[in-house]
């Protein structure tokens, strides 16, 4: 006696989300198949630690924390993450594999989510590889481990938000350069909206409530809060909703333009 399980919600979930894992696996694998992944990781490590030591004068700051390290992330991610995300859909479009992927029995949202998660995981790996910075702070002093942890969580969340934007711009074109530049500019605007220099002058032109609202849309505002060690649900929700919104836009764009 065999049970017919084909109509249970469980198997339905399985059949819809079943392709997610192979897609994530394939995407991640394809990063490491090309030298791009290694070049990216090396540049990621050099730029994040380099800015900390040289631009941020980490050693002279006499502070056993990674505050300076995280301070540069919103700026570095403009380039680093846009360059990870730019190929995501543009490459499938260029190669024509988008036609293979989207005619397999995979719902569009699973394909979009799978590709996004693979790239996010990849960024996570690069971020984890900065662990010598943690060791250094512990060697130099007695840092607050909690603050370091929230810093990493915040940076990873913010990285996801950047990535979702470049996923979206990547779905708009088969040209990776256009995808990169568009994503760079959108992210730059979102960073600048919360940049100290700009926010102080915003108040001169707009009423306080409006300038506050504008700053609330910025990566910097929310990341700074997490960076200081306070994980506020509002900041987490902010990044997650950027991701959700952008992935939804990504799905809609693909739905309407996948054939062109």
């Amino acid at each position, binding site marked *: 006696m065999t049970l017919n399980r084909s109509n249970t919600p469980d198997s339905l979930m399985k059949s*819809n989300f*079943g392709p997610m894992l192979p*897609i994530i696996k*394939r995407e991640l694998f394809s990063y490491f198949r090309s030298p791009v992944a290694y070049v990216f990781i090396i540049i990621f490590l050099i730029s994040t630690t380099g800015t900390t030591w040289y631009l941020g004068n980490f050693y002279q700051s006499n502070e056993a924390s990674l505050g300076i390290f995280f301070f540069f992330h919103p700026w570095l991610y403009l380039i680093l993450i846009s360059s990870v995300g730019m190929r995501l859909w543009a490459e499938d479009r260029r*190669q024509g*594999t988008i036609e293979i992927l989207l*005619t*397999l*029995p995979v719902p569009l949202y699973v394909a979009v989510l799978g590709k996004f998660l693979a790239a996010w995981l990849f960024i996570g790996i690069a971020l984890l590889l900065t662990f010598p910075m943690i060791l250094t702070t512990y060697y130099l002093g007695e840092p607050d481990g909690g603050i370091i942890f929230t810093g990493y969580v915040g940076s990873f969340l913010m990285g996801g938000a950047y990535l979702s934007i470049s996923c979206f711009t990547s779905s708009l074109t088969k040209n990776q350069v256009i995808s990169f530049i568009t994503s760079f500019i959108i992210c730059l605007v979102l960073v600048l909206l919360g940049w100290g220099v700009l926010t102080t002058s915003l108040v001169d032109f707009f009423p306080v409530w409006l300038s506050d609202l504008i700053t609330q849309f910025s990566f910097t505002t929310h990341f700074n809060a997490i960076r200081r060690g306070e994980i506020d649900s509002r900041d987490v929700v902010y990044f997650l909703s950027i991701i959700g919104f952008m992935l939804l836009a990504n799905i809609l764009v693909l739905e309407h333009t*996948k054939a062109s």
Partner: protein
Amino acid sequence: MIEVRKLVKKFGGLTAVDNITFEVKQGQVLGFLGPNGAGKSTTMKIITGFIPPTSGTIIVGGKDVGEDSLGVRRQIGYLPENAPAYSEMNVREYLRFIAEVRGMRGAERNRAVERVVEITSLDEVLHRIIDNLSKGFKQRVCFAQAMIHDPPVLILDEPTDGLDPNQKHEMREVIRGMGQTKTIILSTHILEEMEAVCTRAIIIANGRLVVDGTPDELAAMSRHHNAVMVRTIRPQDGLEAQLREIKGVASVEREDGKDVDGKGNAPTTYAVFPQSAQVILPEVSRFLESKKIEFLEIFAERGRMDEVFRQVTLHEEHS
């Protein structure tokens, strides 16, 4: 198995597919013919669920593409034009990936890969990176990908494109074999291929379906259908007029050949066209016999596909 009803697809102001209706049954191999840009690929992309139609319905194996796109996609194996593949992977990794996305795991997945590798003779390149393969192998990798789940329906967009004559022959054999049990739609602009593989053909021009029939029916539309070709070793004086006298003959055309040896031996072909496509071969051959006219060859034409193709597609383009 596949039902396409009143299919319309518009891209902006351009109508790529204009009210196409047809049906394909199990065991049929349907050939899509038409000039480039006629709407063949677009129609295939709509059937596979890649792009949505502007209007019309498509039912594959009892499932509506508009309502149960995933259900339809599970039954279809699709080879897109230009045979795209994730070129940084090797052949086995790629086929395993497709099998996994189609829900196969472990031993089942490996068996499926083995099966298609055997059908498409890919064993020698199994561990090669797809990017480094020749066009012929890439085409076969894409074909293998389409068959990995042994689907009841195959949609093949120019499956023999870029293959050499031997590979083309092999591919046609495979398709013909599959056609016994599956439902296949393939597009091509090689007319000889359509005759070799398809049990039925559809000609599309400017997005409209202009002809739907078996290869024989298509051939019968040709002016040359049942025309008798007589080739003589050199031009014969007055033969044209004599042939025209035979009962049932409508007209005769003479085509002079090249002087092959400088002694006036120029093989000449006389095309004898019948009235209303009737069979006139016996009459013509009896006539030649009675007049003791030597000829190199004589045969009745089945009809010329290229002629039919030009006739229906050019007519459509001008109207």
